[in-house]
């Protein structure tokens, strides 16, 4: 009897921490959106009836999808080079990828503020090269947000993909070669299909990360490029519209969870190893 309770006893403090300080508040936030006096779905109807709000949601989706696609492509190709680099070069390249990852979001977004600003480096460079005749601000555009987000997530994708690629046993690629597959054949028929589940997991991280980000759209997108994260903050802390903020929060939770569930289902389907 004592032994049956021990495992639960050990796990209990952590369970309580999550239940009380995550479960309770998040559920309350979700319930808030259904407790509107104007009707259960009133906040959602309001959200989707507002052109501005729809634009914010759509823009966030668009930025997250573009960021994900670019990060996966850049990350995978770079990881391929890293995984096949000589041992010494490889460890330096991994350090170069890990370092930005461990540097904070604010610092990394700030760097792009310096680069893309009106008096920034890119403008000075383009002016010096005579490509443009007067500086123009690249900040507060969707492009700026995407560039900074790709910058944010490429290291994560590189590390994920290096892990995935190194997890493919060499015996398998040797076997494919011995059976007559050329280098391209081995890549297309063995490495890529085996890497896809890992790539999906990485892509989900990038998508949910960029969909819910705050600091980068705040610094590089500003008011003009309002995204779900910045919009939530504005509703909650500037306008004090907590129902509206909770609605945004609920939509974010639904999109995030749906993406994670659907994609992990897809990854499992594409991965007969686990099944």
């Amino acid at each position, binding site marked *: 009897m004592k032994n049956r309770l021990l495992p639960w006893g050990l796990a209990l403090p952590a369970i309580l921490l999550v239940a009380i300080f995550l479960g309770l508040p998040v559920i309350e936030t979700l319930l808030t959106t259904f407790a509107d006096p104007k009707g259960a779905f009133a906040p959602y109807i309001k959200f989707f009836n507002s052109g501005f709000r729809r634009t914010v949601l759509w823009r966030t989706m668009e930025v997250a999808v573009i960021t994900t696609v670019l990060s996966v492509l850049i990350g995978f190709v770079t990881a391929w080079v890293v995984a096949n680099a000589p041992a010494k070069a490889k460890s330096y390249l991994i350090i170069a990828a890990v370092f930005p990852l461990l540097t904070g979001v604010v610092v990394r977004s700030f760097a792009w503020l310096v680069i893309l600003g009106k008096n920034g480096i890119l403008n000075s460079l383009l002016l010096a090269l005579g490509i443009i005749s007067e500086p123009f601000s690249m900040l507060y555009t969707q492009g700026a947000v995407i560039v900074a987000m790709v910058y944010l997530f490429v290291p994560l994708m590189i590390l994920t993909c290096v892990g995935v690629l190194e997890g493919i*046993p060499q*015996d*398998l690629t*040797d*076997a*494919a*070669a*011995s*059976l*007559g*597959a*050329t280098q391209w*054949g081995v890549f297309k*028929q*063995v490495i890529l*299909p*085996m890497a896809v589940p890992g790539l999906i997991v990485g892509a989900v991280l990038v998508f949910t990360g960029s969909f819910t980000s705050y600091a980068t759209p705040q610094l590089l997108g500003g008011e003009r490029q309002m995204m779900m994260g910045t919009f939530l903050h504005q509703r909650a802390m500037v306008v004090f519209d907590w129902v509206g903020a909770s609605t945004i929060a609920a939509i974010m939770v639904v999109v995030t969870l749906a993406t994670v569930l659907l994609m992990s289902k897809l990854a499992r389907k*594409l*991965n*007969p*190893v*686990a*099944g």
Partner: protein
Amino acid sequence: MTVSLTLENITAHYGKTMVLEDLNLHVGEGELVSLLGSSGCGKTTTLRLVAGFLEPTAGHIRLGDRDLTRLPSHARDIGLVFQTYALFPHLSVKDNVAFGLKQRGIATAERNKRAMDMVERVGLSGFADRYPANLSGGQRQRVALARALVIDPPLLMFDEPLSNLDAKLRVEMRVEIRRLQQANGTTALYVTHDQEEAFSISDRVAIMNKGRIMQLDTPEVLYSRPANAFVADFVGFENVIEAVATGEDGDMILAEAGGALLKLPKSHFELPGKEFLLAARADGLTVTAAPGEGLPATLGLRTYLGRAYQYVCETQAGTLTANGPLGAPLETGANAVLIPQPEQCCVLPREAL
């Protein structure tokens, strides 16, 4: 199409370490040759060189009249069975088997037919649509075999193919491998560290040590007439005694060893020189109570083997292991003589090991 495999003066390095030194090997048409040795002896390196996963620093590899030495792996046309099986986890049994055919540009219908035929031949009909993760070890082994055989390669190679199976399956699968290899008449190179496996399956066996072939012969010759002390030790000659020939007596050779005079029948032994080594299995030295004609010994620890008693014996030639009959166990400390049994002994040249 049967061809022979020839390795000529192959030298190979890992970085700066030499792993193979001037290795020569010929595997005849339709012959199965095993490379046998402990880990690090160079047997797997040899196989990977032939497969094209490594390049030799010197020498040539020929398959029939083709020079493979600089050919990329995928153009070598060799069927390879891996220790880990290396089945593609994302492909079904049928697609695994068909993989090599697909690389050869064989049309889907033909490909599927040939793959299914092969799946059936290795006894896996009904499993064609399963994935490797859902197969037992023995079944995976059969898929690996089918995948290597279906491309009808002129050369089959096996890298410790049975080491992940339990004892019973191992015996079953090695019979299966031998059967399929002989039925196709395919030339084969087989790498293993298991002596019983190598001897039971091979036409000839190469015993390797430190990147060199110590002896290449039929299992029968290796077992009874090893060519040097390394091979003798490897095939179970536990005792090696230094001896000097002193003369002849009719059809007997007279030799002095361990302070005693031994008589060895000429019909069994061909001395490599005046000074030589006498190697004996424990069964090749019979323990008899002193006095008598043989190597004098003081008996130490006695253990029971079922078919005989085994004794640790102190002699002038060193500590030896010898067996005595079940009828008359001798006590520790007793004086005895050890009598060589010619069928379980052999002579070796004296050389630096």
